[in-house]
C-alpha cells in the first residue's frame, strides 16, 4: 500500500513538472473505481460528463493538491459534482436521508442496457441502485475504490461508526436481495 501511495505522489509530482504521461497513468490507474462509482451515483446519461468533469477539476486543482490519496480526492470531486447536478435538476434530497425512496437519481439500466448486459449484472446493479444514497455511497467507495472506513467517514463527514453502520445496512439489504443469485453462482 505504501509503495502505491508513493507512486501516486511521484506521478503527481512528475505531472507538475510538465510530464503529461504521468497524468495519463493516473487516469488509467483510477479509471475503473472512479467510473464505477460515478456510474452508480449519477444517472447513466450524466456519468460520462461527470467522469470527464472530475478530471478537468482535478487538473485545475492539481497545483494546490497535497494529499497522498488521489482516489479519495477524486471521489470527493465526483461526489460534489453529482450533488451539484442533482440540485440543478431539482431532484436534490437531504444528505442525511436514510430512506430508500428519497435518494438522488440513480443509474437504473434502461431497456437497451438491460438487453446489452447480463441478467445477473443487471440484477446486481438494480439491487445496488435501490440502496439509499448514503449507504450506496459507502458501499461503492468501499467496493470500487477500496477506501478505508476512515477515509469514507471523512468524505461523508460522519463518524467512522456511522460509515460502518451504513455499510452494514447496505450489505444486509444486498444479501437479502441477491442471496439466491450468489448461492447459484457459488454452486
Amino acid at each position, binding site marked *: 500500500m505504501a509503495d502505491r501511495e508513493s507512486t501516486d505522489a511521484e506521478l503527481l509530482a512528475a505531472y507538475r513538472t510538465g510530464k503529461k504521461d504521468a*497524468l495519463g497513468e493516473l487516469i488509467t490507474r483510477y479509471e475503473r473505481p472512479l467510473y464505477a462509482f460515478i456510474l452508480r451515483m449519477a444517472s447513466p446519461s450524466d456519468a460520462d460528463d461527470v467522469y470527464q468533469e472530475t478530471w478537468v*477539476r482535478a487538473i485545475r486543482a492539481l497545483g494546490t493538491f497535497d494529499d497522498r490519496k488521489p482516489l479519495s480526492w477524486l471521489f470527493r470531486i465526483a461526489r460534489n459534482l453529482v450533488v451539484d447536478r442533482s440540485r440543478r435538476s431539482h431532484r436534490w434530497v437531504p444528505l442525511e436521508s436514510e430512506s430508500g425512496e428519497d435518494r438522488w437519481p440513480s443509474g437504473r439500466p434502461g431497456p437497451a442496457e438491460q438487453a446489452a448486459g447480463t441478467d445477473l449484472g443487471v440484477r446486481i446493479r438494480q439491487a445496488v441502485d435501490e440502496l439509499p444514497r448514503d449507504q450506496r455511497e459507502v458501499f461503492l467507495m468501499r467496493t470500487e475504490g477500496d477506501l478505508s472506513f476512515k477515509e469514507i467517514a471523512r468524505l461523508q463527514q460522519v463518524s467512522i461508526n456511522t460509515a460502518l*453502520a451504513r455499510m452494514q445496512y447496505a450489505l444486509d439489504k444486498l444479501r437479502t436481495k441477491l442471496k439466491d443469485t450468489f448461492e447459484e453462482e457459488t454452486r
Partner: protein
Amino acid sequence: MSSVKTCEAIRRLMLLADSGELEAEDRQALAGHLDSCAPCRRIQDENRQLLALVRTHRGRTAPALSVAALEGKAKRRLLLFRVPMMVCAVAALFLALLGSGQRLLPLIGIEGPSAPARSALLDEWQFWMVSSLTPQNESTAATAFESEWNQRDFARHLLVLEGLLPDEEATVIDEEYPESTPGALPPITLRGCNTPALLRS
C-alpha cells in the same frame, strides 16, 4: 472496541478486518467470536461472496480520456473564470479611484458636491417625512397641526442647505398674499397626507 462481544459489534469488526483497519487486539476478539458463533461465520462468508460477485459484474467501462483535451478544457475554464474576475477588479478599482478623487477635488480647488450638506439634508428630510405621517390619534393630530407652520420654514431651510437660497434671502412670506412679497419664492404646497386625519374629517 475489544471489550464488545455482541454479534452486532462483531459484524462491524468484520468490516474493519476486511478494510485492514482492525487492531491486533480486536482481531483476536473477532477470531475468538467467529470460532464459537456459527451465524456470524455464515454472515462473513455471505458478505465475502456478495462482494466478489459485485466486483465481477461491473457496469460499462469508462470512456477514454485524452490528457491534452482535459488540459485544454481546464485552461478554458480558468480563462472563463479569470476574465469576469478581472473585469470586476477593474470596476472596483475605478469606483475606489472615483471616490477618493471626489475627496481630493476640494484640495486642488475644484468644488465637488457638498457631501456633508447633502447628508444633513437627507437626515432632515427623513425626520420630516417621519413627522409628517398621518397622525393616529387626537394628540398627535394636534401636534401635527401646531407644527404645520414649520414645514414652510423647513422647505426654505432645505433650499438654503442646497445653496439655492442664501441665508439672508430667506425672506418671510406673507401668508395672506404670498405672490405680493418681493423676491419671495412661491410657497411650498403641502401634500394631502400632511393634513391631520382628524382635521380632514
